[in-house]
């Protein structure tokens, strides 16, 4: 290269070329021809060595500026071209986002399990522990120990399922989970504070009765618990369960062979227009039976009734699930109809806790 190009012209030319490059390849070729080892700017820079010091003093900074501004223009153009290339690719990659996602099925928890967990959360907070016993029971645990000797009229109200007899041991399906009271009291020393959720059976079938249903039994035995505690405990339960702080309630005298005194608890409701609503209103709905454990029952379990006393209660899990969640037909609980399971079932992550709330 014999003639030295005017730096200014060279700069303008190269910047114009950079700006007009319309592909990254073209730009790279330009970069090499300008800034590469034998590039025109590099060649220009090389001429500095041959210059007189004075001349170099002015040409040096000028040449460096030229180099920087060309490099800058190329980089700017590269960024622009890359951005355009990405934009173009992305346009190509467009999908129809209205298309459906890969199907995932949502599983559900049955209302009986959910409500049982709710009950456990509430009663655990009042110091109750969970106890369990077998579904196939004997006469002693289901009746006799609970102060229902063989010809007791209350036995008839139980519509008991019996297993085909083999000899003397007539076995049956428990008609209530009160059987576990007996098992607990005969196997451990008081005090007791237990709840017993479980399957129960009665030979009955219509809109509000199924041959199998679920009951939770509660038992508190110590030296001081009285009927005022029973009221306190059950009012607290009902208000927490239905999540209604001023839920009206009343206790009425009733009769169960295994409690004395006995009571039934009603909660306030309305039935306007045939729709049952828990809470206000001027009507009552029975939700559970309860009472002070009959001294005879304590005796039958080897617990000294002059020393120990307490209360017991029993309520239908399916029934309170129906009341709380507005499920109309008890039979539907056991039909395993997917439509029902999906409608009334609960999310796997919806774990009832008192801190987080019992129902979402």
């Amino acid at each position, binding site marked *: 290269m014999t003639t030295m190009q005017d730096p200014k012209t060279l700069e303008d030319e190269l910047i114009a070329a950079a700006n007009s490059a319309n592909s990254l390849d073209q730009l790279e070729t330009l970069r090499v021809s300008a800034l590469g080892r034998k590039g025109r700017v590099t060649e220009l820079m090389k001429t500095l060595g041959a210059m007189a010091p004075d001349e170099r003093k002015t040409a040096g900074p000028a040449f460096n500026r030229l180099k920087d501004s060309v490099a800058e223009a190329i980089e700017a153009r590269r960024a622009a071209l890359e951005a355009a290339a990405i934009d173009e690719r992305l346009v190509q990659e467009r999908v129809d986002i209205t298309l459906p996602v890969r199907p995932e099925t949502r599983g559900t928890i049955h209302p009986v399990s959910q409500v049982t967990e709710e009950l456990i959360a509430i009663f655990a907070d009042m110091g109750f522990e969970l106890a369990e016993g077998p579904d196939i029971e004997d006469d002693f645990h289901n009746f006799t120990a609970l102060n229902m000797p063989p010809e007791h009229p209350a036995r008839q109200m139980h519509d008991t399922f019996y297993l085909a007899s083999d000899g003397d041991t007539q076995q049956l399906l428990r008609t209530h989970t009160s059987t576990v009271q007996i098992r607990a009291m005969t196997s451990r020393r008081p005090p007791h504070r237990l709840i017993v959720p479980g399957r129960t059976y009665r030979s009955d079938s219509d809109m509000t009765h199924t041959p199998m249903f679920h009951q939770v039994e509660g038992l508190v035995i110590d030296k001081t618990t009285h009927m005022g505690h029973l009221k306190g405990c059950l009012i607290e339960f009902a208000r927490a369960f239905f999540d209604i702080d001023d839920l009206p309630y009343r206790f009425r005298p009733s009769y169960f062979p295994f409690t004395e005194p006995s009571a039934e608890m009603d909660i306030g409701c309305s039935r306007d227009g045939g729709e049952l609503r828990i809470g206000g209103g001027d009507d009552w709905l029975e939700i559970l039976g309860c009472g*002070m454990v009959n001294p005879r029952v304590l005796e039958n379990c080897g617990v000294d009734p002059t020393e120990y006393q307490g209360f017991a209660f029993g309520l239908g899990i399916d029934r309170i699930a129906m009341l709380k969640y507005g499920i109309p037909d008890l039979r539907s609980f056991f039909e395993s109809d997917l439509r029902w399971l999906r409608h009334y079932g609960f999310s796997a992550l919806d774990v009832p806790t008192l801190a987080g709330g019992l129902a979402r």
Partner: protein
Amino acid sequence: MKFTVGWLKEHLETDATLDEIAQKLMAVGLEVEAIMDSSETLAPFVVGHVIDCSPHPDADKLQVCSVDTGDGAPLQVVCGAPNVRAGMKGVFAPPGTTVPGTGLHLKKAKIRGVESNGMLCSERELGVSDEHEGIIELPDDAPVGAPYAAYAGMDDPVIEIGITPNRQDCLGVHGIARDLAAAGLGAVKMPPVSAVSGSFRSSISVERRLGDNGDACPMFVGRYVKGVKNGPSPRWLQDRLRAIGLRPISALVDMTNFLTFDRGRPLHVFDADTIAGGIHIRLSRPGEKLLALDGKEYTLDDAVTVIADDDGPLALGGIIGGESSGCSAETTNVFIEAALFDTVRTAMSGRKLGILSDARYRFERGVDPDAVVSGMEIATRMVLDLCGGEASELVVAGEVPDWRKTVEFRPARVHALIGLDVPEDESLSILASLGFAARRDGAQLLIDVPSWRRDIDGEADLVEEVARIKGYDAIPITPLEKSRAVTRPALTAEQRRRVAARRVLASRGLNECVTWSFMPGEQAMAFGGGSDDMRLKNPISAELDVMRPSILPNLVAATARNVDRGFADVALFETGPQYAGRAPDDQSMVTAGVRRGAAVPRHWQDRGRDVDVFDAKSDVLAVLEELGAPVAKLQVSTDAPSWYHPGRSGVLRLGPKKTLAAFGELHPATLRALDCEGPCVGFEIYLDALPERRSAGNANRGALDLNALQPVDRDFAFLVDADVPASNLVAAAGAAEKKLIVGATVFDVFSGGSLGEGKKSVAIRVTLQPLEKTFTESEIDAIAEKIVASVSKATGAVLRG
């Protein structure tokens, strides 16, 4: 138990309103089930006089009537009743009335073009009976315009209460009055029962031929009344019976029904002229028959108490009378029975024979043992009043059994048991008002229980009496104290597992079901159950007759029902009990599941995939992992129960004995038996077999061992006999260098092609973790050689080139 307010007031001096009475009944434990106040529901109905009646111009069966309703000008009413005619009196309802029997709201309307301003009613329309042949016809002297309910004696509100099995004393109106009076609602009326003096000796004798079974009928009091006239009973008596749903029959029969409900004292009246010889009370003889008053013939065994004459049974004691000795309009001489029958025998006989009667209902709960004679006197008085005649002396067989019962009462127990402070004198005054008598014996306070309270057993019963008369509302609400401020776990490890198992499966897309604990016996046999001792004696249906040996069949059947409803892809599970036998230990907790149809549904990106055994296995492993089972240590074998596909099922074990789960495709025969079309896989996880988890208070997970050196993967492809389980290759690879090999898994399996018959290729990826320093190539090669050698030795596999 039904009664009317007017009836109650015969026994209770009170000004209480219907509402107050109802509230108090509830408060003392006599649960009000219904109140029927006809004076309200029948308020618009009045006596109407049909002045004129002419055929409807456009309808054959209709009449156009002019009805005087006692209020202004006569009204035009269209009526279709066959018995409507000019001059008759009937029951008229004006427009605006809701007809109780039909629920219809009456409006002024044109019927076939003729205006009608109300309706003449039938008994059914009034809701008083099912009679609908024609409209009600009233006597000529019925006052026009008078409210019908008052005119017909139906303005007395009826209260229906539920009586708990212990309160036999309230199966008569008098007992209810006593409870209400004790609770402060007025004073109970107790007119003295005056004895009727007999003027002759009964020609019918009574003998108890009970031998050792004297308890069956401890006392029988009879009385002959001659010269009675058995016509209809008086209006007041008929009204009472009708109000509680009984049909008046004749004075004698109505009297016994009345006293059953008035006094809780069932009685019987025999037509004395039908009795052959004397009356004896005895147990029935096998094969004896009785045609009872309900028109049915009963064949007796050897245990029913019968009232018999020389020819055979006349009545079933305490249950029902016989047709042949019953009273009729022609009856002139009667023999009245007032007796006591044993509760247990009455209940058993009644149940055996299937007879529900008002007498049985009372005797099986216990009738006042000290009111036999007084009951007879009241009955005799009524017979003489209603039917005339002359009474004999009493015929008494047996005696009043010893009913006396004394209970010690410590007044402080009231506060101890109910938490309400009731002073001693108040407790005693409540008990006295219910008929209990208190006396002191040294330091002891003894309470004598009245004869009519058969339910009082101990001190707790007395406390209940005080509590219910005070009212449960008065019991102070007391918080149940917690022994610790912060709630401790209420669940055992096993119980927590169930909750976790459910939530894992629900999170994997399965829907939880709750199915019956019973199932069809025939199907149970295919699942190792259905033996005779697991059969129900009295199943609700043949479909639900044995305890389930497995949950799976119920789930498969539920799946089939959902498929039939149009849901092809179904995934169900249940966590619940299954029953291997009758003993408590034979019941175990199982989580079972079924998947049917597509595992991956068809999608625009995916052709979809049917469920297979690995979906079931995956569910099982997910649950086991969540429940803390040592999944890596489990052994898989192919001996799943017979209801699974023998070649596509497996069992997971911990050690040789502990079976944790079975899974697999369901056997085609199983699916066919349960009417379920495949593809269908299932699993059963035996929750009770899972090993215990860490003990409480030890939540320490140990230190995390983080190695700075990166692991290295190496792939190996082996050629091996087709029947060698892949897990053997993986296990052998892992065993080659236990410290350094941290993972091994199968990533490819294929057979056929060039591999040759009976061979397959299994490719595994082994992950090596350097411990001290990065592996050199030669170190890796050495390990790889060990792996190949180990796998070859264990499985006969050779490395593919």
